[in-house]
């Protein structure tokens, strides 16, 4: 598991797994699209707008997952002085931002038919919007702070502080009574969703994950290289 | 009092200078010489511990300067290469702020003579921003007298000054040294100031 914290090892391992990951992501994505458009039923309430779910929910999960891993790596980097954590954070933040954006856009598109507006100020939506802004700030910091050594630490601290937002995103639907769907799929007990919708959802989630992973590998590699060549 | 040993400084991973040695004892004047960009200002800032050196050590009164920083600061006046007076305030305000913040022990008449020798006495109520380049520079020197410290660290003190003022500075330097002070300064000119050590960067 050393490749998760060591740049050289990381390069080595990902050279092997990059191609499989890429192929897998394409396959899964195709399969997921097939399932979500043709092989799953309309919802009896929502009609075919329910298909937005197959984009919305995976992207939402991945947005959260990405941030969670970034938090982990920040702890590794700050507490255990593992510089790979900084590399990871720099490389992965834009991916998380994109997932969050997809989540927001698909959610809004879903919200118009379901709730009658694009946007409401309920706790879930607001906290996701803040998550997006946090991602953006992380990116801006990476782009505009001059001194790299300082910048990475500042960003890592910022990620840690910002992680307070994660449980708010996750549990806001349970804590406050909101418009947004409470946890139906990701409940610890039995999920209250029809398996015919569950399958495409799971496939799409893995497809998103693989795509994210592939891009992350590429970005981390370039980040490693750029640090080697341009020391500032 | 100050001993600099094997000092090297890097900036953005580029070596600025390497293995600089110098020592400054009371009554001495050290001049730094070198081309533009050779690192004179950087060296001065390193001695002031504003920049951390990548190698080498600096001693103050025999102890590591790092450990003894505020005692060092109590004994040193630094004048940077750019003026640091507050341009929006008048000359008088600037002097007031300095003499108060530095808890100066010079009295008014001393200050007045200093102002007169620097030929700034007519500008007291003028905004610093409207002074001429040399006048601003001379105003900066007033800090030497107000702070009244032993070690002077001056970055290009002679530039933009006219002949008279350079002579005045020269005189001031000599007086300061004869009273046991010590000076380290950088300059591109050679105004005939007697120096004890010349460091080439």
């Amino acid at each position, binding site marked *: 598991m050393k490749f998760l914290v060591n740049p050289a090892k990381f390069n080595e391992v990902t050279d092997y797994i990059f191609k499989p990951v890429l192929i897998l992501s394409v396959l899964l994505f195709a399969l997921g699209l097939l399932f979500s458009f043709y092989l799953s039923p309309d919802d009896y309430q929502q009609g075919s707008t329910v298909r937005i779910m197959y984009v919305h929910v995976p992207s939402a999960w991945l947005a959260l997952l990405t941030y969670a891993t970034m938090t982990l790596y920040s702890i590794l980097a700050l507490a255990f002085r593992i510089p790979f954590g900084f590399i990871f954070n720099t490389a992965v933040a834009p991916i998380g931002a994109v997932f969050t954006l997809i989540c927001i856009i698909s959610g809004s598109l879903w919200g118009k038919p379901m709730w009658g507006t694009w946007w409401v100020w309920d706790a879930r939506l607001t906290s996701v919007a803040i998550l997006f802004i946090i991602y953006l700030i992380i990116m801006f910091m990476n782009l505009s*702070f001059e001194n790299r050594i300082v910048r990475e630490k500042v960003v890592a601290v910022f990620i840690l502080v910002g992680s307070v937002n994660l449980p708010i995103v996750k549990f806001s639907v349970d804590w406050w009574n909101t418009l947004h769907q409470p946890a139906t799929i990701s409940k610890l007990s039995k999920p209250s969703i029809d398996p015919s919708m569950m399958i495409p959802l799971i496939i799409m989630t893995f497809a998103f994950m693989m795509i994210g992973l592939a891009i992350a590998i590429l970005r981390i590699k370039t980040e490693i290289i750029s640090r080697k060549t341009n020391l500032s | 009092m100050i001993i600099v040993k094997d000092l090297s400084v890097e900036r953005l991973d580029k070596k600025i200078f390497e293995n600089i040695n110098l020592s400054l004892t009371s009554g001495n004047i050290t001049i730094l010489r070198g081309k533009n960009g050779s690192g004179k200002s950087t060296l001065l800032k390193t001695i002031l511990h504003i920049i951390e050196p990548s190698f080498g050590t600096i001693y103050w009164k025999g102890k590591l300067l790092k450990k003894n920083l*505020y005692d060092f*600061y109590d004994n040193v*006046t*630094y004048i940077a290469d750019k003026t640091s007076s507050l341009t929006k305030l008048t000359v008088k305000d600037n002097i007031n702020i300095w003499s108060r913040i530095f808890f100066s022990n010079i009295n008014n008449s001393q200050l007045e003579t200093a102002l007169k020798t620097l030929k700034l006495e007519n500008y007291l109520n003028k905004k610093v921003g409207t002074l001429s380049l040399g006048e601003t520079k001379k105003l900066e020197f007033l800090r030497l007298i107000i702070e009244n410290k032993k070690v002077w660290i001056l970055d290009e003190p002679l530039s933009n000054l006219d002949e008279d003022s350079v002579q005045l500075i020269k005189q001031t330097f000599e007086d300061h040294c004869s009273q046991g002070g010590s000076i380290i300064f950088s300059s591109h000119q050679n105004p005939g100031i007697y120096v004890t050590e010349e460091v080439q960067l």
Partner: protein
Amino acid sequence: MIKFLIKIIFFYYREYKLNLSGFQDILTNIIFFFVSIFIFIFSIGPDKDTISVVGVGILWTLLLLSSTLSLRKFYQDDFENGNLVIMHLNGFSFGFIAILKTLSNFLFVQIPFLLSIPIACILLNIANDKIIYLITSFGISSFILSCLGSISSSMNLMNQRNFLLGSLIVMVFSIPIIIFSVGIINMEESFNSLINILFGILLIVFAINPWASGLCLKLSLENK
């Protein structure tokens, strides 16, 4: 020791001179404040109830926005003209400079605002008995904002390009504080205990501030 105290006093003399010569800036801020209140009143219409409902919220936002306005002046000028170095050489550690500067920001930027709150309350139809709550919670939170501002603007010295980034960071961090303090004013029973929490936050931020800002100041001077 006394020498040191006197130094501090003259530090504020200096800040006073500097800020007052920017008296116009303060006035501009206050005008901005009142103009915005007028804007709200006009855009909402003269309905008293609505105004008093949103009044506190409006005050809060304006306070926050105007302190972001002043962020730029926090360290930038002294950093650029070398006065930060002179102060440091004068025996103030960077952390201590941060504390002094934070207090000075509070004094010269936030206090004028706090003073104009009573008038604003009249304009916004906020009940008289709430004013005292308002001012207390505003006082504490604006101090928190000063601390946050100090941290973010010292950080921003290392980033000469994207000025607004500092403001953004402050704003994001102040969201919980806002939620909290707006809540306070509407819960008069538990006001005291809530104020204590706010006070706790203040203490934490105040404790972090000299450390964080000081570090940033040192690093940015090193790379100047």
